[in-house]
């Protein structure tokens, strides 16, 4: 059984145009994902590379039951993300680019709140929270401080702790190091590596950090304008496109540089 099995997955969003027809503004369909198909083996770490608006976050949201697909299907350890969403939710957790918390509440309170939803009682979190915070390199003595007083890097460590506290077998990482300073970035990457090796977790890492993808992942996928156009080990991708670096492979696969964004990307980026 695959950890993740995605078949012809499609997602569209409708957007209102500024132009009016009679009394109503026109609505347009914008494709965020178009027929995405791939599998991930248990224990594998797969990175999906893509620019803003490529559909990375839409993919993560579909797999974490936060969006309903318009076509195709996705299964997590055999459970359909739409029909068996509760079973999927028990297996999955997610860290996204925004470390979202109740800012006035402390890290301990935020983690306790998240843990309760996964059936973890106060007797268990009393010891588990300080332990897990320590393991992500968070100064345990600061666990009673409001989140608003913590740096962005610290908040992202708490976000990682929140995801791990529920012992997910599939960890969805949506640009977990974006916006972090170089030191925090390395710390978070080290921790991801440690979790992967020590927790028997399967990881889907969506990123636009090419080095991060190359260093952490078994296979690297290229998602461009909602289409998955490649998914192979980084070395195979380089060989396939006969290039030296992953950035060059990206350029060869998509026909544009990694930094280059088009209007369509920005439009999809509203959702993705």
């Amino acid at each position, binding site marked *: 059984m695959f950890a993740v099995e995605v078949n012809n997955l499609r997602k569209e969003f409708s957007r209102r145009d500024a132009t009016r027809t009679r009394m109503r503004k026109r609505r347009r369909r914008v494709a965020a994902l178009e027929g995405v198909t791939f599998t991930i083996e248990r224990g594998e770490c797969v990175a999906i590379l893509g620019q803003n608006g490529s559909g990375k976050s839409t993919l993560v949201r579909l797999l974490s039951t936060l969006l309903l697909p318009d076509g195709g299907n996705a299964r997590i350890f055999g459970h359909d993300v739409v029909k068996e969403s509760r079973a999927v939710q028990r297996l999955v957790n997610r860290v996204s680019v925004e470390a979202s918390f109740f800012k006035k509440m402390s890290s301990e309170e935020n983690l*306790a709140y998240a843990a309760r939803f996964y059936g*973890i009682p106060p007797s268990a979190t009393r010891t588990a929270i300080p332990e897990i915070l320590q393991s992500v390199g968070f100064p345990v003595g600061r666990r009673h401080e409001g989140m608003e007083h913590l740096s962005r890097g610290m908040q992202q460590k708490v976000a990682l702790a929140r995801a791990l506290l529920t012992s997910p077998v599939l960890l969805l990482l949506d640009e977990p190091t974006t916006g972090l300073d170089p030191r925090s970035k390395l710390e978070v990457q080290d921790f991801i590596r440690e979790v992967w090796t020590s927790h028997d977790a399967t990881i889907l890492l969506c990123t636009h950090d090419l080095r991060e993808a190359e260093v952490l992942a078994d296979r690297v996928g290229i998602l461009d304008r909602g289409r998955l156009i490649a998914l192979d080990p980084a070395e195979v991708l380089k060989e396939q496109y006969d290039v030296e670096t992953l950035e060059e492979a990206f350029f060869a696969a998509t026909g544009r540089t990694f930094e280059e964004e088009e209007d369509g990307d920005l439009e999809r980026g509203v959702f993705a």
Partner: protein
Amino acid sequence: MREPAAALRHEFIGLYGMVERNWYLIKRYAWWEIAFFFWTAANTLTIVFIAKGVVAEGGTVNLDRLTTILLIGAVIWSYLGIVFELLIETVAWERWEGTIEYTFMAPLTRAVHLLGTGIFAIGYGIVRATIVFAAIAAFFGLHMPNADFVAALVLISVASISFVGIGMMTAVLPLISPEKGTQFGYVAQGLMLVVSGVYYPVSVLPEFMQWIAKISPATYALRGERSAILDGAGVGAVWGDIWPMLIIGVVSVPLGIWVFRRGELHAKKHGKLKRSG
């Protein structure tokens, strides 16, 4: 542990988690809570002073009785406000903080999620309403020698079930309209009270409004509370106000959960969980 028992335990822990989180937030925003308490007290005063105003204008009324009638109306209004506000914040606050996706991807039934907020709202609302009631009654030197406060507590508790059910329906509004959904919850609260005889008997309303009043739980809550506090009616005597509220509660809670679930599916279909502005 057998699977159904484990699942039930999971749901109870989740329910506790909602109550616990709301308690953390109340503690962290304690000064704001105190400020809002004074605002509620001031708002209640402005209404209750109307009784004295009527006398000052030459009206001949039983001042204590009219003051208590207005006080009960104002306190029920503020209580309903707290219940609706906390339920609407189920979505609105989480969307603002950005935590909503983490809550909605957790393996917890939406019913438990909403009921957890509802239970906290009832407990917190009753405590706050009681303090406001006692403070304003003391301010006006009101005497209620006949009051049956046990019956009053039973009435507000039963009314709360249907208030929570209706509140769940309004909680879905910020999911559908992130910009205006929260405010529309207050509109629903106002519409409910205007037909329910908040400061006047329902009999003074036009006939069509009196018909609408029959399906509003606030109608029975207000009438029952006034009977219990002003006339000392016991639980048995206000049963005529309790059973309609029980029926409305039995219908409105499942309906509220169903409406919220529909809103959630709409948001997941159209990608509205994420939007924060």
